[in-house]
């Protein structure tokens, strides 16, 4: 980026400098051309004036006037009004007929000056070799600067001088053909000090003429060509470069200063254009660079980001996540490896599920076989006793038969019970919600077990109830909760074969009602705690492994949570959280197990 900016800046600076030099050279050429044009026009006008004055001098009426005035006692008053008409016919701004003594006979520009002296005219050497010359002269409207010429008509020993000229003013400037962005100004040095109205252009006095005072003052003190820049406003485009050319009179006095102005607007505008173009190119380059960088970065990092997103998906459990594989570079190979890894995870999970499913079926089969084998063995033995009694002791057959049928019926009943338990677990009903006071349910269940807590022949179990006061009613199924608490109490009683304390506590906590039951039994190992809610898993010899599974199912159907904390030799505690208003019956069980102070969420 920096390189781009530097290169654009260098190119812009180079082009700007080159442009300025080119325009400076062009301006110099224009100025030189205009100065040359002015000088040519000045010389041409001078020749014209001289020709016209000489033409007037050579004209018949002038010659007659000269002859008439050469006579003794000539009446010059006859010619007092002649100059004006002659000046108009010859397109001269100034024309004077001057007698041999320098007296004005007739004046076109100031007719009332007749009779007054114009003595310089009689000094022929002052003007004879000059042709035309610049001169300051008085007029009726004030002083003026004019391009003058003198011609003499000699009759005898007397001269009649014809003095004519053309005003140097805005008309003269208007005749100059100026290039675009250039202008010509003329300062007429008519007064002892700088006077702004004396600075004119082709239309009249110049606006803000006082800005030219330094240039004019320098010309007045040291006449010579010089160049000066004037900034009209703070805008650099308003600047003009003025080239001054002094115009001197017969006595080398400064009479006028020509100022050739060259507007810098075009140069500045072009430079600005180049600058803006450079800025535009730089901006486009920067944008292009940014886009290119983004595109390159995106091309490199997008697959990586996709891999990262895929990894997050996998970590969130979505093992079916796949990332698109583009190309065969390192990123592509990484993507392929990722896909293979996720595929492997899915496969392993499937295999694990399958293995767990097989293991579960095996466990069910084992448990079922175990449960069924116990009644089947007495059945077989009883039937064999009947067969043996009928053949070996027919007299005792009747007694044996009665005893055997009793045993058979009892064992068959036992088989039905086993099958019923499995059937109950398979047909777990959906809860029918209603207002329930959990404390009442706990009290009722405890009351049912009071006899068993203190049964003869087994160590006593002391129940401790810490039921919360003002416990709110919850929306729950009374029967199912009753059954769940029964199972938890049974489970605790089985865990305390040597007796102990069974503590139950209810509390309210953030929209939930908590139920805790703890025993002082033998406790559970970590593995046992992990599998405690697994159906058909049991640590007891005679259990079906469905009690806590049923408890977990009931809690889950009430949108609650159940967790277990246990420590070997100390006891086990179950924590149940039931919402006061369950949103809907929970289909998927949610179980939180806490073992050894470590909570595991499954």
């Amino acid at each position, binding site marked *: 980026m920096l390189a781009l900016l530097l290169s654009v800046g260098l190119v812009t600076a180079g082009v700007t400098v080159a442009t300025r030099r080119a325009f400076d050279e062009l301006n110099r050429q224009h100025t030189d051309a205009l100065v040359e044009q002015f000088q040519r026009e000045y010389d041409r006008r001078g020749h014209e004036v001289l020709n016209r004055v000489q033409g007037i001098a050579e004209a018949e009426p002038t010659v007659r006037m000269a002859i008439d005035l050469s006579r003794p006692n000539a009446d010059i*008053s006859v010619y*007092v009004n002649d100059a004006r008409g002659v000046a108009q016919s010859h397109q001269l701004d100034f024309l004077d007929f001057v007698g041999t003594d320098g007296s004005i006979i007739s004046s076109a520009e*100031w*007719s*009332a000056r*007749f009779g007054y002296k114009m003595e310089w005219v009689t000094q022929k050497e002052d003007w004879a070799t000059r042709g035309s010359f610049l001169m300051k002269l008085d007029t*009726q409207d004030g002083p003026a600067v004019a391009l003058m010429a003198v011609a003499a008509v000699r009759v005898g020993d007397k001269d009649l001088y014809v003095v004519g000229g053309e005003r140097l003013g805005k008309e003269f400037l208007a005749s100059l053909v100026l290039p675009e962005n250039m202008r010509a100004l003329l300062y007429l040095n008519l007064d002892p000090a700088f006077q702004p109205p004396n600075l004119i252009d082709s239309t009249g006095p110049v606006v803000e003429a006082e800005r030219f005072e330094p240039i004019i003052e320098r010309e007045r003190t040291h006449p010579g060509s010089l160049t000066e820049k004037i900034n009209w406003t703070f805008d650099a485009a308003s600047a003009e470069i003025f080239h001054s050319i002094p115009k001197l009179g017969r006595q080398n006095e400064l009479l006028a200063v020509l100022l050739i102005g060259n507007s810098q607007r075009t140069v500045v505008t072009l430079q600005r254009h180049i600058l803006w173009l450079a800025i535009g190119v730089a901006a486009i380059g920067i944008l292009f660079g940014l886009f290119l960088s983004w595109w390159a970065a995106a091309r490199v990092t997008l697959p990586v980001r996709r891999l990262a997103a895929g990894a997050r998906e996998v970590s969130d459990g979505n093992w079916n996540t796949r990332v698109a594989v583009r190309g065969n570079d390192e990123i592509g190979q990484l993507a392929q490896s990722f896909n293979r890894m996720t595929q492997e995870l899915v496969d392993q999970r499937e295999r694990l599920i399958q293995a767990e499913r097989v293991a579960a079926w095996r466990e069910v089969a084992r448990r079922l076989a175990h449960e069924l084998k116990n009644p089947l063995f007495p059945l077989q033995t009883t039937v064999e006793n009947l067969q043996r009694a009928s053949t070996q002791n027919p007299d005792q057959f009747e007694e044996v038969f009665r005893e055997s049928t009793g045993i058979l019926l009892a064992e068959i009943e036992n088989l039905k019970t086993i099958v019923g338990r499995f059937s109950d677990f398979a047909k777990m009903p959906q809860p029918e919600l209603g207002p329930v006071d959990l404390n009442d349910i706990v009290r009722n269940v405890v009351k049912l077990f009071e006899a068993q807590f203190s049964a003869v022949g087994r160590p006593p179990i002391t129940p401790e109830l810490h039921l919360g006061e003002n416990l709110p009613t919850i929306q729950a199924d009374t029967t199912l909760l009753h059954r769940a608490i029964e199972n938890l109490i049974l489970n605790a009683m089985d865990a305390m074969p040597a007796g102990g304390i069974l503590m139950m506590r209810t509390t309210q906590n953030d929209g939930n009602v908590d139920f805790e039951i703890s025993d002082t039994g033998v406790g559970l190992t970590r593995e046992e705690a992990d599998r405690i809610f697994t159906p058909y898993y049991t640590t007891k010899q005679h259990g079906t492994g469905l009690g806590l599974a049923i408890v977990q199912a009931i809690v889950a159907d009430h949108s609650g949570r159940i967790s277990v904390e246990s420590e070997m030799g100390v006891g086990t505690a179950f924590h149940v959280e039931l919402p006061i208003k369950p949103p809907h019956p929970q289909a998927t069980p949610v179980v939180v197990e806490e073992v050894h102070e470590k909570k595991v969420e499954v």
Partner: protein
Amino acid sequence: MKLRLCLCLATISVVLAGAAPLPPARRPHYGGTLRVEIGATLQSLDPAGVATSREEADAKTELDALLYDQRGEDGTFVGTAGSGPFRLSSWEAGKRATFAANQDYREGRPFVDSIEIQLGRPAHDRVVDLELNKTDFATIPPEQARQATDRGVRVSVSQPNELLALVFLGSRSGKESTRIREAIARCIDRAAIVNFILQKEGEPAGGLLPHWSSGTTFLFPTEMDVRTAKEIWSQISPSPNLVLGYDSTDTLEQSVAERIVVNAKEAGISSVSRALPASGKASPGQVDGSTRGAAIRVDARLVRLRMPSPLPRISLTVFINRLEPIAGIVDSPVPQSASPEDVYYCERSIMNSGLVVPIVWMPQVYGLSARVRDWKQPAAGEGWPLADVWLDSTDPQ
């Protein structure tokens, strides 16, 4: 005593100057139309009408003199139009008018049957028409009389009876203003004005009355004295820039004003000339260009004063009455009698105020065709005596 002698000599010279050579004796006859051209563009001959320029006012006075028989004490014409030698027969405002001879005129019927008057003809065209015999009678500016004569036009020049004077408007007062007026009066080259601008038709004016009328003009110097003017002006501090006004329609006034500016410049006096709006006069008793140029500030302005009478007392009285409102002259004496001394002292009193600087006396110049007979120069204050002229039988070309 010396003054009396001078006045007597002056009177004799005036009488001798009036004895002009008589034309060839021929029998006058009646008939014909006299063609007249004047420069003014008259819009109305209504006696109550107001002229818009000096030239218009002069022309109206002359035409009224043809239509009316009598004048009142203030110089205005009285009676009914047509009581004079002519009656108005047709009128086109600003273009032409036709007067018919009044058969019942008190002093007898004019010789010509009618007068055709063309209005609004420029001076140059009038001279050309006279030269080409396209008109019989026309007024000519005095400065063009010499040129007309050189071109063969029959010219009749009256005695100088119109004064061109520079009148200070009284806007300045005190000792300084007196010096300013004196400096200006001394720097004016009157001779050059007469010789160059008026082409020698006129004479330098030093007083309010011409020499032929009063005979005392030698007592009022007319010479240019630049040195004294410079001395006087140098005593004025701060020196003002004087503005001299002139009638914008009067080229002669403009030329004279510009010349005065040149003269003043030679004496170091800063001044400019400035055109003022044209002003007419409602009646012969009002001074030409009497307005003070309310919108344009001027220190002095040129004023033409035409003598209402050859008699010095009457003319001086009228002049004083006309100048008083212009120059702000208060209680200036007017001649109580016709005695030369009385008239002189009144004239001197006005001149001593310095408010009026006489420049030149100018004549009335008329161009006549060859067929106009028995033309007599009208006396000062009199109208054109066209009732007395007759036309030669030669048909106009």
